[in-house]
Each structure stands twice: as C-alpha cells, then as structure tokens.
C-alpha cells in the first residue's frame, strides 16, 4: 500500500525576475515499510520535493502544483490546521539544516520537552524524561546531553539529537535529509542499523535523502534518482544500482569515490554542468552531458517506461548492460 503518493508534483521558486523550476512533474509512490533513498546531484531538487510535499516553503516566493496523498489525504489540499496535525506527529523530518533547529538559550532537554508538550499536552514529566533518554540511547548519546546547550555539542551530536527528536512523536514517515552525513561511518552505521531494527516495530517508513550511494545500497530497499528537478529512475536498490537503465544513474554510480587498487582512489566527475533551471528546455535535461544522447533526446521529453511494476525510468535510450555499459 502507498503511504505517500506524489502525483504530477512541481515546485517553482519565484524570484524578482526569474522562475526556478526546482521540481518538475514528479510521480513517486512510496510504499509502507519500503525504505526509499533519494539521490541526485546537488541542486537537483531533492530537498525542495520534500519541503514542497510538507508545505514548508514560503508561499509568496514559491509555487507548488500537483498532489501528495498521505494515507489517502492530499497534503496540498489540506487546511493549515489539518496539516499541523500530520506534520511532525505523522511525518517528521530531519533536515540538512538540523543544527539550526535548537534554541541557543534552552537546554536540549527543555527544548525537547516543550515540543513534546505541544503535541501531547497530557504527558507526565517522568514519562517524557524516560522517553527522551531511550531515544538518546537509540542514537548513541548519553543522557547528560539533556542538560547541555546546543553550542556545547559537536555537529554530529546535534545531528543525532535531532534524529532522536524526530522519532519522539512516533511518526509513520521519517524523512532524513542528509541527516547522517555529518557523522563518522561507525556512528552512522550504528544509528541506521538501530532505526532499521525498530522500523518494523514502529511501522515506520523511512525516506533518506543522501549523497552517499553506499548508505542507500546498504540501508534502503528502493532508490529514486533525481536530476534537474525530475525523477530519472526508481526501483529496488539491487536492480537500479547493479543494472541501471538510465545513463545518469550509471554516471552517478561511477562518480562515487572508491578505494582503488592502485591506492589513489577515484574521484571521477561527470563532465559539464547541470542545465540552468530558469530556462525552459525541451527533451531530457541530461541530454547535454549524456553519452547516449540522440536528437530525439533534445526534442522530446522522455516519459515513464517500466521494466516491471516496481522499476521505471525516463530515458529514450536506456542501457542494456547496466553498470558495464559504456
């Protein structure tokens, strides 16, 4: 069953003399309990997509089109009041900017308690406290953190605290936008393993926005690849990462740094830059940089093609041999 169904979804940022089409007609179904990794180049609209779906964007400077159904209700059509019941309590987000969310003048404990009280006014202090300590343990932090101020914590400790906070109200969907990027790999793996383990128990669906393909490979069931505000390919991680159909997926995989045998490590970049999202264009946004591009790619927007009912891509010239395809 779909827990979140994003339909024909677009977001544009409106400047004084420009319009940036940051998310462009995205269709994405997120199934309950099937963790999804969202990857794509910087500026490809990953954060904007989730910000748009949760209506966290400034309505004066941005325009959202399309629908986003959470458990059958369109988040976009909801009143603000209805929405406020869903946000944080049902769908919670740990942002890239997580370090800014804490109040500099309150201890972490006070801050967390205040938020909890907003949604659960009847809760007892002792219960809250116990809950907080458990959640901190989940993200590998000692309970002393509750008595500390944000500036006394390292970047990674703050990030872990915000992950704990996001689980506080037992949401159905947890969106992690680069939430573990600031952590060392041991801590990152421990936290993701812990979340993975409680997912079934809490019936939690995780959406992980990340630049780290290995995190998706190891911790997400499905992957969605974005480029220039559009969805390029989506499917089960094993399918997409082993046999990518979209040339961009292949190139993105290749640019992932590895420990090469010769000891240098590879840091390969994709030549060229992303198209300017302010300028309208025809065809496929990757055409300028793509090794497979044909005339058709520059003229005609690729529609969704299906390999099977869980795996689809948007490309006129899909790869046959996957990874090895040059």
């Amino acid at each position, binding site marked *: 069953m779909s827990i979140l169904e994003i339909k024909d979804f677009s977001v544009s940022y409106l400047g004084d003399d420009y319009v940036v089409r940051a998310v462009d007609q995205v269709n994405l179904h997120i199934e309950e309990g099937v963790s999804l990794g969202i990857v794509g180049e910087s500026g490809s609209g990953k954060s904007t997509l989730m910000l748009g779906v949760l209506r966290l964007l400034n309505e004066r400077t941005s325009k959202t089109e399309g629908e986003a159904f959470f458990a059958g209700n369109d988040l976009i059509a909801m009143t603000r009041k209805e929405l406020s019941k869903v946000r944080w309590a049902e769908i919670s987000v740990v942002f890239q900017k997580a370090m800014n969310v804490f109040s500099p003048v309150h201890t972490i404990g006070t801050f967390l308690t205040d938020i909890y009280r907003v949604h659960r006014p009847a809760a007892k202090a002792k219960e809250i406290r116990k809950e907080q300590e458990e959640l901190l343990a989940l993200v590998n932090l000692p309970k002393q953190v509750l008595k500390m101020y944000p500036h006394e914590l390292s970047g990674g400790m703050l990030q872990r605290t915000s992950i704990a906070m996001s689980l506080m109200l037992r949401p159905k969907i947890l969106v992690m936008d680069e939430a573990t990027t600031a952590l060392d790999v041991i801590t990152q793996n421990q936290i993701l393993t812990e979340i993975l383990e409680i997912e079934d128990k809490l019936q939690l669906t995780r959406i992980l926005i990340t630049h780290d393909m290995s995190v998706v490979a190891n911790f997400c069931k499905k992957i969605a690849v974005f480029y220039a505000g559009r969805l390029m390919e989506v499917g089960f991680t094993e399918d997409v990462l*082993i046999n990518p159909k979209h040339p961009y997926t292949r190139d993105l995989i290749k640019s992932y740094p590895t420990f090469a045998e010769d000891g240098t490590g590879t840091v390969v970049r994709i030549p060229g830059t992303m198209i300017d999202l302010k300028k309208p264009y025809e065809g496929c946004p990757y055409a300028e940089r793509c090794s497979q591009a044909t005339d058709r790619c520059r003229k005609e927007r690729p529609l969704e093609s299906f390999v099977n009912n869980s795996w689809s891509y948007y490309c006129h010239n899909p790869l046959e041999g996957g990874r090895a395809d040059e």
Partner: protein
Amino acid sequence: MSEKDIKSSVQEMINRQTKKADQIIQADQTILQVTSLKKYYRQKNKRNVLVRSLDGVSFELGRGECLGIIGESGCGKSTLGRVLIGLEDATAGEILLDYEDIKEVKKRNRKELRRKAQMVFQNPFDTFDNRIRIGDILSSALKLHNIGSTAKIRKQMVLDSLKKVGLLPEEDYYKRYPNELSGGQLQRISILRSMLLKPEFIVADEPVSMLDVSVRAEVIHMLDDMAKKENTAVVFISHDIATTRYIADRIAVMYLGRIMEIGKANEVITNPLHPYTKALISNCGDADPRNKMKPLQVKGEPPSPMNIPEGCVFSDRCPYATQRCRTEEQTLHDFKENGHLVRCRFAMQHKENG
C-alpha cells in the same frame, strides 16, 4: 605535569625530532608546528565537569601539504580547527605559524592572522548573511584585505572565480542571495571565499559533506588545484574517508581528543595499524549492493570527553584490549620507522599487523 604527561610529551618530542631530521633539508617548508595542544571546556550547567575536547595533539604541517583528519564525531576535530586558526585559544600547548606563536600574531594584528589562516565551516547555511548578495559577500572580503584596487577589478576577480568553480552563469550567481542556493552551491561559495585571500593555510571542516559525489569531485579538484598552485597548506576534516584519502598527503585519525594514528594517506588507509582505524575503515560501504559491508564492530557506548577512560582511551571498546591496555597510557610509536605513528604499543602484535 604528571609523570605520564611528561613521558608522553618526551615521546612526542622524540617523534618530532626524528621527523624533523628527515625533513631537515626542507626546514623552512614547515608552516605549522603544533605541540601538545589541549583545549578544555567547562560545561555551563556543571561547572565542575571538565570537557577535555583536545588532550595533547601534536603534528607538523608542511607548506602546501594537505593533512586529512578523520575520526569519531565529537572527538575534537572541529575544536582543533577552531584553535588552529585562532578562533579560540588553547588551554595549553603551542601553535607555531611560520615559526611564530599564533598568540603573538593575534595580539599584533587579528586581520593578519585572518589573512594567513582561513576556515571553511561544516554548515554553509550558518556562514552567510541572507540579506547580502553572493557577489557583494565575496567582493567585500577582497576589499577588507585590500586585494584588487578598484571595485571593477574586484568584481571581475569574483566573476572569474565563480566561473572557475562551475557556478554558471557567473553573473547570475553574483546577483543571488545565499538562501537562493542549494547547500552544495553554497559550500562552493564558502570555499571560494576562504581561498580568495590566498591564505598560508586553511582549515576545511567537512567542506564536502553536503555536496553530492559528482560535485564533490569538482570541489575537491578545485581545492587541490588552488592549494597546490598557491602552496596553501590544508587541514581537511572529513568523515568521507575515500575523499580524504584522495586529497590528503597524510591522514591523522583522532579519537577522544588525541591522534591515534598518523601517516601517509595510503599507508593509513590500506594498512591501518590502530584497532580504531581498522574499525573505521571496515565501516566504509560500497555503492554496489552485492558488496555488503562487513563492518568490524566496536562494542560499548561511544566515548565522552567528560569521562576519559584510564590507560588507552580506546581500551573500553577495543576488541584486542588486555589488562595492560586498561592501565598503561599509550603514546605514539613509529614501529616501521617511516613516519607512520600509532598510539597502541601492541599494534604490531595484532595478528594482521605482525
């Protein structure tokens, strides 16, 4: 100073002397000498609790050299960065920048220190004022340090540099406000700004953690190119071990405020000696789902600088720990006599290292 402290600083001095001897021909190639650096904080709510964020860090950095710093989150990497560029004063220890104590440089002229030592922060969103256009942010940094004689020249310098880092069309980025850029784009601006002043060394604290891999490569190449061309030394703090290995000449692995292992980047990554480094490297994943990660587990709670274990600071989590580890404080050893130092006396006895 306790006897242990004396012993460890003597050992560190010997290590330094050995290294110095190796480098004697390139004597004035050293830009930074850091000795027994300590930074202790007091917690606001519990003034009696001492947070030992840096607890005796020593190393040298050559001109144009890139030292990568990896390690547990909360182990003191950012603290080290802030202390190195003089944003915060050390509790103890010494930092010589170009053979001069940075405390002196700072006392004489803060602006001079800022020009010599720059920092790129972990979080680009906090770095900029959203009311000022990118172009003005960069131009005013130049103006403040008297670089470029006219506004027009400065503008051209800024446009050129925007172009160089692939923020195209450059005129367009010049006019944008910080909140109109994505995290990745903003971080490139941040790196650019620190490089504009042609500093002697920069501390880059997680400069690429918010960039996706394809752009990451671009930024790494840019940082590498600029640093090599200007002979700028770089302290590169990151959790991305593959990238750190790529850009760094040497890598230092930190844990609980101290360096556990330091050596040539390739040596440390392909032939890690310290049990902590081994665990760290085994936790690095691959983008191919067929190669599932086989991480070495480190047991127990993560460490706290408020409560540092006796003996080896890793002994409560180390899979090899013996009784001696829990009582004997460890110092850096150069077992192979090749500048690959490890803070574990027993490192060569662990079977893979033997």
